[in-house]
């Protein structure tokens, strides 16, 4: 049975998922309203096109609607799971476009500094604070480290492809990935301390 919108809004993401699995549109709508913005932004970041980002986001959310039962709370948050669905679809979309290079932005400082719209909840505020730290951490990385991470995560390239693209030994690419991720992780750990 569908819950009322107001009730759904009071529920945590993890509490909404069983309702989504039971095909409750109100619960799903709340889920979209909470995460649709970042999902669309991520899709746009990867595919670099408004219409394609819209298509990818819609497909991703519909797949969540149809397969909400696949969410496993022991493996991370709903938001992380949902964004991984969006990311995978966007990368698949890129790969389906023969000869189309992913949109890669390495020096877009304005993008890194731009703050999101008004904060709605304390949770969202905390999340955005964390996002700000990540933006800071990514921006603070030496370019050669942020570059390999962006090529992998937002470009969907394998480490061997990245080595080829950048004309670097594979070991160098692996090393830069590790150093970059370690710095972001350390930044997050410091923020939580």
């Amino acid at each position, binding site marked *: 049975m569908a819950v009322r919108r107001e009730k759904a809004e009071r529920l945590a993401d993890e509490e909404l998922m069983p309702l989504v699995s039971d095909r409750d549109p109100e619960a799903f709508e709340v889920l979209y309203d909470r995460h649709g913005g970042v999902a669309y932004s991520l899709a746009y970041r990867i595919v670099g096109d408004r219409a394609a980002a819209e298509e990818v986001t819609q497909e991703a959310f519909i797949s969540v609607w149809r397969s909400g039962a696949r969410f496993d709370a022991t493996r991370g948050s709903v938001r992380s799971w949902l964004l991984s669905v969006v*990311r995978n679809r966007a990368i698949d979309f890129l790969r389906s476009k023969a000869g189309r290079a992913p949109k890669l932005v390495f020096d877009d400082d304005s993008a890194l500094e731009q703050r999101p719209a008004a904060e709605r909840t304390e949770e969202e505020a905390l999340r*955005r604070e964390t996002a700000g730290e990540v933006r800071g951490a990514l921006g603070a990385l030496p370019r050669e480290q942020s570059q390999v991470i962006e090529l992998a995560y937002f470009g969907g390239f394998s480490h061997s492809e990245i080595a080829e693209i950048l004309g670097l030994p594979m070991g160098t690419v692996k090393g830069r990935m590790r150093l970059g991720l370690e710095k972001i992780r350390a930044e997050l750990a410091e923020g939580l301390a």
Partner: protein
Amino acid sequence: VSDAGHTRWSEDLPAYVLGALEPTEAAAFERHLDGCRRCRAEVRWFEPAVATLPESVERREPPRSLRRSLMAEVRADAKGETPPPPARSRWFSRDILLRPAIGLAVLTLTVAAVAGYELGKGGGEGGASTEVMREHGVTVKMVREGNGGTLELANVRRMPPTKVLEAWVRRNGTMEPVPALFVPDRAGRASTMIADMAGVDAVMVTQEPQGGSEEPTSVPIVTMSIPR
């Protein structure tokens, strides 16, 4: 795992958590992961860093039309208004189209499959026969010999590192997975053996998560009718 062995795998670990290993590398890494507590701990340690990468993107307001069309589809679906899948096969059901494992690359190829055409068929020595189709550049060749057969694909596009190809046969209206999973090589070639072709009237291939699936979770890359 020895220190030297661990070091070798540990070098690949950041690429693994970023989804940047080739499919065969990712499969090998996951096999190692099953038996290596140190690597599992390190993956868990890195995961929060990767999980927050999407939060770093510039925020864009999604168009209102997206929310409208999404919720219209969801509400119609909840009311059971979604049109039923085509009668020809549940392989093509809308549900499959919309599951997470689907890639738009697969969708593109499947649409192409409808427009695919048979290039030829021919008999062979000793009762062997071959059917060939081409779909948007992907060539599908089914070589039947005796009770079995070999399904060969060429020009298969690159797949996400976490995916494998899984073949399915339809027999008496029932879909059955082919046990041997496979992946395309760098040249885009992939093949698998089908031990028992008796009663099979169609063969299809889908992308599935590592380890395969009990039923298809994505739109078929290729679908070929098998003449009786």
